[in-house]
């Protein structure tokens, strides 16, 4: 799947076909005009149709430098109606969320918001997403935090914890049962 998506993305920008002409032919923003879900509404609000492909987002993107990832191409694929392909691809999980693209976009598109909306749509449709997120959610459900207090090493490789360092007890929700009930309900949504 990943190769297929990359191939399509490649075609969008190469082979003498300008993205603009594809944009003109394909139904611009079509999958987004009739919103069927809350998450698609979020995608619509990030205004992918406003992109005119200047490439400023990709030029400052740290992930584009290191991975098969390009925020402009992702926005272009959304414009071209290739949302389903993106939801099944690993590319949408390669963004480091540094938000430089959102800050610098001259057309107020916010590629990072487009990517976040695609991530949320992946989950909403029951498609696979990186399992690390489930681990984080279950830790919050159980402890209120993504991580419980750890023993950490000093430079001399002695291990210390909050108590030995004289720090007060760590915070967590007062009534874990009530907290977990609320979180459980939200996780089901």
């Amino acid at each position: 799947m990943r190769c297929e998506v990359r191939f399509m993305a490649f075609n969008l920008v190469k082979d003498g076909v300008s993205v603009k002409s594809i944009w003109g032919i394909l139904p611009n923003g079509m999958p987004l005009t009739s919103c069927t879900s809350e998450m698609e509404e979020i995608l619509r609000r990030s205004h992918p149709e406003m992109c005119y492909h200047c490439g400023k987002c990709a030029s400052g993107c740290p992930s584009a430098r290191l991975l098969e990832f390009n925020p402009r191409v992702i926005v272009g694929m959304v414009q071209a109606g290739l949302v389903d392909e993106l939801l099944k691809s690993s590319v949408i999980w390669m963004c480091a969320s540094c938000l430089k693209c959102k800050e610098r976009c001259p057309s107020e598109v916010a590629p990072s918001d487009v990517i976040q909306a695609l991530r949320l749509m992946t989950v909403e449709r029951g498609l696979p997403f990186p399992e690390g997120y489930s681990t984080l959610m279950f830790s919050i459900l159980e402890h209120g935090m993504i991580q419980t207090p750890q023993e950490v090493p000093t430079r001399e490789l002695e291990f210390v914890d909050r108590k030995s360092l004289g720090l007060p007890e760590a915070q967590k929700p007062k009534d874990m049962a009530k907290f977990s009930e609320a979180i459980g309900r939200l996780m089901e949504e």
Partner: protein
Amino acid sequence: MKPLKLALYLGCTIQSEQYAYEMSVRETLPRLGVELVEMEGASCCGHPIKNVSMPMWLYLSTRNLAIASQLGLDILTLCNGCYMSLREAQKALDEDANLRSRIAQLLEAEGLKYEGDVKVYHLLDALHDLVGVDRVKDAVERPLEGLRFATHYGCHILRPSELGAPDDPEDPHKLEELIEALGAETVDYPEKLDCCGAELAMNYSDAALTMAGLKLRAVQRCDADGLAVICPFCMRMLDAKQDAAKAVIGDQRISVPVFYYTQLLGLAMGLPQEGLGLNLNLSPVDGVLGRLA
């Protein structure tokens, strides 16, 4: 001067592993006239969950705002992720009455209520704007003379600036001013606004470590004696994972001492190293500490 009283919101990473940040904040801020009030019952801010569940993120952030609201205090957060998350939640609640009532219902079951009356400060604007550079300067007993520091603000304190960045999002200077107040010099470098890679660490750890490695190499090239950070995720990438980052980019010459700003502040105030958690920095900080001894 009116005494400052703020609710200390630690979030997950600081209270579960980045102890040096918490220790140095607890040592220094009260000495600068900031009373820190514990936020009993606090939870994760939800920031990492925003990629997979909007409602869960919003609930988590709002319940922490509610705890501060019930204390009648503004929040002091030390983490860039928490800072962005809490303020994004405020924006989302402001813009959508339906969301507000949905979250309010859930909060009620936990005995919580958010009145929309809490301001969220990061350590950076709390020190620079509330305490003030002059007051920091006055507290210095042992100036960090002869040392040059590069700064790393981290992404989510400056971006998205639509939330109202506490500093110029493309050319921030408040951390430099706070370092110069300690008697040290600051060094500018082109990669100052680059990401540490932390948010990519879970899904693409090699790419994340490469980002950290490139950042560290840039700091090394600008000939600084050390790097000052103000976010626990950035600290974890640039300090604790420095050896791993070196290995991934294949540059064993990298050797950058990394400090929390509040550790430098404590040193300049003449406080003992132990209480500032300076034995917990895993990057090569001993040279700098030796020069200050």
